[in-house]
């Protein structure tokens, strides 16, 4: 791309490169107080007493809030209401908050933290999922009646019969780790009790409507009495749902009690301690194949550590279940999935949402199988992959969109010269100092929420008397550029310039609840709603013109800011002015309801998602045997985006997803000692840095999706779910060693290899 022809457009880029963008922590209100959380040293304990008297007397302290001050519900949650807004009788994990200190300054509030005395009786922490599942183990949440949060299954064909037809059986156990979202902006909230009795909430969260539910539940007030206002947000990646909402709920309670605006701004350590993580999985996976490489049967048991609270564990593990065989058709499948309570930090949504774990398992196994069958790693994939008209393991026929699995694979093979590179791999057998490897992985992914949730969205187009346009949708700007993409879809569909469109500052009080901005659904659902709204606006304009100028409605069209009708034309601005003059508002609501999906919880069969997306990624690496350095040389990603709304920002999603996938594959792990997180900041939690990253190539394949009104497919998560297995395969091809645990710690002899650029 060159300077003269910038392809990139963002409505917030100017504000962000000049420091003018005001994030929540940058905002101040007059008479604002500051709140901070108080934790205990416990991981699992009975609370005997909470004494706040000394803290109440400390300098600057206005109020110390505990569970006793909650007027609404003590616990809340998106699925099971098990999360204690303030811990009352028990500590379930080390991030439980017992109190919040509200003071005149943040400094004074922090100074009073050690003055809160909590008397506890320690209980034995339950930190291992299989121990938690043992019937002899006490229940963590007694009212739930089990340590198993949820179960899912897939029952297809007959696995016993299937395995009998197999020549080759692979039976392995894989482990994945807790990882931290590591959004650059920690949790922060400002709550302002407004003159009209409404609690106004500003905060760093990616689900304003969920936040509103958390706040209203805690305050014991109606949804209409809480207004969550969109504020520039420093990243989410799925991680700013529950915890971010709970921080807002506590802060709102502090504001309600003191009658003053209250800010609660988290340190990185508090954020890492309290916020949910990606689920660690233990996966028992048995795969049977005939000698010509056809997968005949899969039996697997997936155990996900949900930690202390349910959060969205049932939904995360549902996606893992639906996608438990990767992009391969298998006739006989028996999968059992369990989400399990432990006393670890709780786990929830994170970019990928249950697929990165399973892709690591499947894409490692398929290559192990290829070697046993004496097939190339490409050929074995071709023999098993989903194609046009294939039936998935849940019985869904893939015929309502273009199945682009092979197209993405072939694109990577061609653009990366993959098969030439594969021939050069060392497999640990070289006299050279440098071991060389290249590896790939591919996946398909159900679009949006699927049968896990109610999925619809709306957009409001409000054309002003001068022809300028305000757009609003039920999608939230997390930093990914959703507002810009949606403005661009509006401009494209309506046939007007981008300059006349402004995205209205979002508020939960002005647009219907559009669900959460997760599941790569922003562009699909929000874009779909924008297209529907444009259709409605065009109809409204056409109807007006047809009545006023006696022409057919169908004879009206809008192109390049001009309204054509019959042989006549008027500018868009003139028509809008005439509409206002005739008491017609060019104001419309558009609603997009994706095709209906289905799911049978008893046999794990159904049309799980209304459409699917396809992708393939590869990476080449070298490992120096003498210096022990692992270098990431080049990476490539090809994904079907349907139709890209904003090309440079879509490419940015690819690059960022690859980076996060690399972190997952070889760097990142939240580490614990006795249930307490020990690497709680970026000096000890290892994120990918600029020097770690390979040069990347992003290839956007565009097969507009007929089920998505804007043609777009979600891309934020597909790009993040493949790098760990691609790395595992590249590392195998370099060293001859297969790894079953993430993050991969390569060992040559006794030495652990460290990734570093020279």
């Amino acid at each position, binding site marked *: *791309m060159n*300077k003269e022809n*910038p*392809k*990139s457009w*963002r409505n*917030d*880029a*100017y*504000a*962000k*490169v*000049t*420091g*003018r*963008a*005001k*994030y929540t*922590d*940058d905002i101040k209100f007059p008479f604002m107080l500051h709140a901070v959380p108080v934790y205990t040293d416990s991981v699992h304990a009975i609370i005997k007493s909470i004494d706040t008297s000394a803290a109440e007397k400390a300098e600057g302290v206005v109020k110390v809030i505990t569970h006793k001050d909650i007027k609404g519900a003590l616990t809340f949650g998106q699925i099971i209401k098990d999360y204690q807004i303030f811990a009352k009788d028990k500590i379930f994990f080390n991030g439980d908050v017992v109190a919040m200190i509200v003071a005149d300054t943040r400094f004074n509030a922090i100074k009073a933290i050690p003055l809160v005395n909590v008397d506890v009786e320690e209980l034995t922490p339950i930190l291992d999922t299989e121990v938690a599942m043992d019937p002899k183990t006490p229940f963590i949440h007694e009212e739930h009646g089990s340590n198993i949060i949820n179960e899912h299954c897939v029952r297809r064909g007959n696995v016993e019969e299937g395995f009998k037809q197999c020549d080759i059986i692979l039976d392995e156990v894989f482990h994945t780790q807790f990882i931290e979202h*590591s*959004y*650059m*902006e*920690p949790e922060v909230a400002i709550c302002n009790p407004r003159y009209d009795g409404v609690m106004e909430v500003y905060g760093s969260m990616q689900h304003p409507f969920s936040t509103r539910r958390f706040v209203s539940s805690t305050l014991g007030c109606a949804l209409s009495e809480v207004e969550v206002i969109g504020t*520039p*947000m*420093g*990243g989410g*990646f799925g991680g700013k749902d529950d915890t971010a909402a709970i921080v807002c709920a506590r802060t709102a309670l502090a504001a309600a009690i003191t009658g003053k605006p209250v800010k609660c*701004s988290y*340190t*990185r350590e508090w954020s890492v301690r309290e916020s949910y993580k990606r689920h660690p999985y233990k996966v028992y996976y048995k795969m049977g194949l005939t000698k010509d490489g056809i997968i005949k049967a899969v039996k697997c048991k997936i155990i996900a550590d949900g930690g202390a609270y349910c959060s969205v564990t049932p939904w995360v593990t549902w996606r893992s279940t639906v996608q438990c065989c990767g992009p391969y058709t298998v006739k006989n499948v028996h999968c059992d999935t369990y989400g399990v309570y432990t006393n670890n930090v709780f786990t929830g949504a994170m970019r990928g949402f249950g697929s990165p774990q399973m892709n690591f398992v499947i894409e490692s196994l398929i290559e192990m199988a290829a070697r046993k069958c004496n097939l190339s790693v490409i050929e074995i994939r071709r023999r098993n992959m989903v194609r046009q008209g294939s039936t998935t393991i849940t019985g869904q026929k893939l015929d309502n969109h273009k199945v682009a699995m092979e197209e993405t694979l072939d694109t990577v093979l061609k653009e990366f010269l993959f098969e030439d590179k594969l021939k050069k791999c060392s497999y640990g057998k070289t006299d050279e100092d440098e071991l060389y490897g290249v590896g790939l992985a591919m996946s398909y992914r159900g679009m949006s929420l699927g049968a896990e949730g109610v999925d619809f969205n709306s957009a409001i187009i409000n054309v002003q008397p001068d022809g300028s346009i305000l757009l609003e949708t039920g999608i939230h700007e*997390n*930093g*990914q*550029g959703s507002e810009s993409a949606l403005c661009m879809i509006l401009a494209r569909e309506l046939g007007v310039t981008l300059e006349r469109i402004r995205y209205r500052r979002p508020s939960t009080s002005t647009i219907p609840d559009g669900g959460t901005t997760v599941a790569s659904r922003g562009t699909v659902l929000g874009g779909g709603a924008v297209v529907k709204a444009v259709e409605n606006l065009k109809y409204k304009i056409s109807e007006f013109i047809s009545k006023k100028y006696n022409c057919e409605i169908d004879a009206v069209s809008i192109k390049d800011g001009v309204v054509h009708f019959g042989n006549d034309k008027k500018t868009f601005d003139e028509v809008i002015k005439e509409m206002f003059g005739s008491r017609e508002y060019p104001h419309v609501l558009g609603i997009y309801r994706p095709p209906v999906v289905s799911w049978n919880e008893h046999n794990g069969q159904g049309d799980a998602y209304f459409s699917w997306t396809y992708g393939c990624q590869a990476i080449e690496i070298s490992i120096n045997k003498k210096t022990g350095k692992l270098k990431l040389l080049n990476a490539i990603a090809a994904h079907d985006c349907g139709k890209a709304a904003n090309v*440079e*920002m879509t*490419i*940015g999603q*690819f*690059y*960022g*997803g*690859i*980076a*996060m996938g690399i972190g997952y594959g070889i760097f990142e792990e939240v580490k614990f000692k006795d249930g307490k997180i020990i690497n709680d*900041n*970026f*000096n000890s939690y290892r*994120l*990918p*840095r*600029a*020097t770690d*990253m390979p*040069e*990347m190539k992003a290839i956007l394949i565009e097969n507009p999706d007929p089920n998505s009104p804007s043609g777009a497919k979600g891309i934020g998560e597909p790009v993040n779910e493949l790098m760990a297995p691609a790395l595992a395969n590249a590392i195998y091809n370099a060293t001859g060693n297969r790894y079953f645990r993430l993050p991969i710690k390569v060992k040559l002899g006794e030495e652990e290899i460290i990734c570093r*650029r020279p």
Partner: protein
Amino acid sequence: MQTTINKKVYNIPDELKDVRLTDYLREYLDLTGVKNACEMRACGACAILVNDKSMRICHATVKDVENCDVLTIEGMENEDGTLHPLQQAFVDYGAVQCGFCTPGMVLTAHALLLSNNSPTREQIRKALQSNLCRCTGYQQIVDAIEAASVYYK
């Protein structure tokens, strides 16, 4: 004590000398482009320019910049309010997503380009090693800096 911030001379009373520099810039001067993200000198979100060198200031106090020339992101624009070519390159090359790391990234890159106006991509990556970004995978940031280097020649 005296210091220059974004070309303006400040006479800072002695009682503020021990205030954290990030607090001074953010709370006293409303220069909120300086971000708190780790407060551990590990992420670069608080990076500013001190005498043309990039400095992570989360552990610094006001007295550490006595008689220095300080530049924050708010001082990067041209006097007529248009963007500095480096900022413009960040916009044009899609180098901005959530934007929380952006001020530190722009200033760190500015320090690099002031000392080396034709860096290789490796040198750019090396210069950004202390600045974390979770959104972009760094590539479009490197692209932007590489493209902007011509304006420093």
